[in-house]
């Protein structure tokens, strides 16, 4: 269904460590990930599991130091991102890949009008005059569903609501028609109705502009709405990956199952929600073996010594848990 030459972004064995006092924090500890053209890929996980760090590594926005990319390759289109010089990377950022941040309230510069800020993205990459950029900015505001864009283009951020600001952020990301948009929890700071509108907008824009979206979230409800393909991250590694259908209906990693069990549903009304015992390990002091084993109901002795391989269930569905592995389509595609 998805050809290999369709791959837009591929991350191989990425490891990002943070240096500080004490042992290094292994924020991202060897992940492999692919985004195909025009696909929506979700990365799900708890706070501190390395989702955002992965995104920042792709964009080249990690502060180094303290962050350090220990190993890995990131291929975007024809570029090996980690080997590019700063100016080359800057030419790509905003042009062919763009990012939408979590906090629309603080992601816009308070002293400029929104039109100014969108124009700036255009002027930074395209040879356009100020007037052309301004016209394009107005058009973009219209595209992201802002009412009366001719007026709003000269509004200051504090005159807009949270949802409007996030639309402006999306317009900024769209300014140069990128192939990939990385959205880092863009709806977390918004209330649920606005959240639904923004998700709908992203889906619609994706259809119109043929972009791929890498969507980072901790909200499984959001994933269910937009994801084509899902990566579940825990403590810096990917524990399970598969289509949204696989993840929601046939989850094969205890962590994914536990997450799903903790989701509130209509059937569970009035009952106490399930919560996973224990807490997320500190990235500097991760347990040996499978990082989830101290909290896992299914753990075995082997889980405590070595990191389990990815077990392939076929159809792109893989989980890093040999204990639950019931090989319907038997074949171990694991590494290590």
């Amino acid at each position: 269904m998805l050809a290999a030459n369709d791959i837009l972004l591929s991350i191989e064995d990425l490891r990002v460590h943070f240096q500080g006092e004490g042992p290094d924090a292994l924020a991202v500890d060897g992940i492999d990930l692919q985004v195909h053209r025009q696909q929506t890929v979700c990365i799900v996980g708890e706070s501190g599991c390395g989702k955002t760090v992965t995104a920042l590594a792709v964009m080249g926005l990690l502060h180094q130091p303290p962050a350090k990319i220990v190993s890995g390759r990131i291929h975007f289109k024809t570029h090996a991102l980690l080997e590019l010089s700063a100016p080359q990377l800057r030419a790509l950022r905003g042009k062919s890949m763009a990012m939408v941040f979590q906090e629309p309230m603080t992601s816009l510069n308070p002293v400029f009008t929104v039109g100014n800020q969108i124009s700036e993205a255009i002027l930074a990459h395209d040879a356009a005059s100020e007037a052309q950029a301004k016209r394009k900015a107005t058009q973009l505001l219209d595209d992201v569903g802002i009412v009366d864009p001719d007026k709003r283009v000269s509004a200051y951020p504090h005159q807009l609501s949270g949802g409007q600001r996030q639309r402006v952020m999306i317009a900024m990301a769209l300014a140069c028609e990128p192939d990939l948009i990385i959205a880092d929890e863009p709806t977390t700071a918004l209330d649920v109705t606005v959240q639904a509108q923004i998700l709908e907008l992203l889906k619609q824009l994706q259809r119109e502009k043929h972009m791929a979206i890498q969507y980072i979230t901790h909200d499984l409800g959001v994933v269910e709405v937009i994801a084509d393909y899902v990566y579940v991250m825990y403590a810096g590694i990917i524990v399970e990956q598969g289509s949204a259908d696989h993840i929601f209906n046939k989850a094969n990693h205890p962590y994914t199952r536990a997450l799903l069990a903790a989701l509130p549903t209509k059937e569970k009304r009035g009952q106490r929600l399930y919560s996973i015992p224990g807490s997320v390990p500190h990235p500097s002091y991760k347990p040996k073996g499978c990082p989830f084993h101290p909290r896992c109901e299914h753990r075995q002795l082997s889980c405590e010594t070595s990191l389990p391989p990815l077990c392939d269930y076929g159809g792109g569905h893989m989980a890093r848990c040999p204990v639950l592995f019931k090989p319907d389509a038997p074949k171990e595609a694991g590494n290590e």
Partner: protein
Amino acid sequence: MSTAKHIAHSAADESFMPPSRSPSAETWRLLRKNRMAFAGFAIFLIFFIVALAGVLLTSGNRPILDPSQVRLQEKLRPPLSYPKTDGLHPEEVPALGIYLLGTDDLGRDVFSRMLQGAWVSLTVGFVAVGIAVAIGILLGGLAGYFGQMPVRLGHLLFWVLITVALIFLMGRLFLWSAILMVLVAAGAVLRRQQLPQKTFPLGWLSWLNRPVMSIDTLIMRAVDIMLCFPSFFLILTVVALLPPSLYNIMVVIGLTSWMGTTRFVRAEFLSLREQDFVAAARSLGLGDMRIIFRHIMPNAVAPVLVSATLGIASAMLTEAGLSFLGFGVPPPHATWGNILSDGKDFIFDAPWLTFAPGITILLVVLAFNLFGEGLRDILNPKLRERN
């Protein structure tokens, strides 16, 4: 345009919304509400106009109001007295026909001298603070934005060599200077080549890459060192060594008062560069310079503006102090400080010689301080929300 559309249009936007104001319009509105600051601002404007008028009226070969016209028979006339025209040459008669602020011990018109002094105070204030703010923004911005980058031994060596070469150049040792320049250029080219660290014959040069300290440490410790000197005495020493001139005083005051601005700017940059909108700007692929000057600087300008306003007042005071002690602008030229200094011998016979410059200095400095304080309140976003 149809009526229905017109109605919908106005209903959606204007009727139920407060008027939309740009930040500068908002600042103006708040300034008018803050009476003390507005009074300060008004005095500042008047002072500005008077100083401008003063420089036009008192300069040139035959100025309209001549501040250095000596009329010995008219000495120590009190304010608002009329000149006795019979004893004077026609060109010695003051143009106004009245000594508004009296005359001094040489019969010079104090009003014209005050006008001439106003221009000195104004230029010293603005130029000195301009220099200080420029240095402060540059160093503070560097320390705040690039602060975590290491200064390597090679960098230090580079600057030391450049400085020594320039000193040689000034001492007319051209050969030595040229040798050092070539050395520096060769070093810079070698660094550009980015040779692998261990390559033989240059492997031994890798000690040049040793980090010594961070840029932040370098700049902020320099600030600390500068603050160790009692600045008025530092200025006195420097001015005593240099030939007396208005420009030297401006430059020296500027070069000894940039530390506060540097600290302010650094603090602002430290907090602003972690803001989401800076990350967003970086994710759009904007360069460092554009981020610093277009995205961070306008947000950091408020405290700089405040400290600059207060700085102008203190630069004027310093200049007046220097002139009072006789280290300021050389004598025939009048400044508020040396009018005060001349007047102190006659304080009981001719108090206007002391009071005119004294009260003016007080008023102008007070006005600048009030304006600066008011500006601090006005530009403070927390207070903005409330008003």
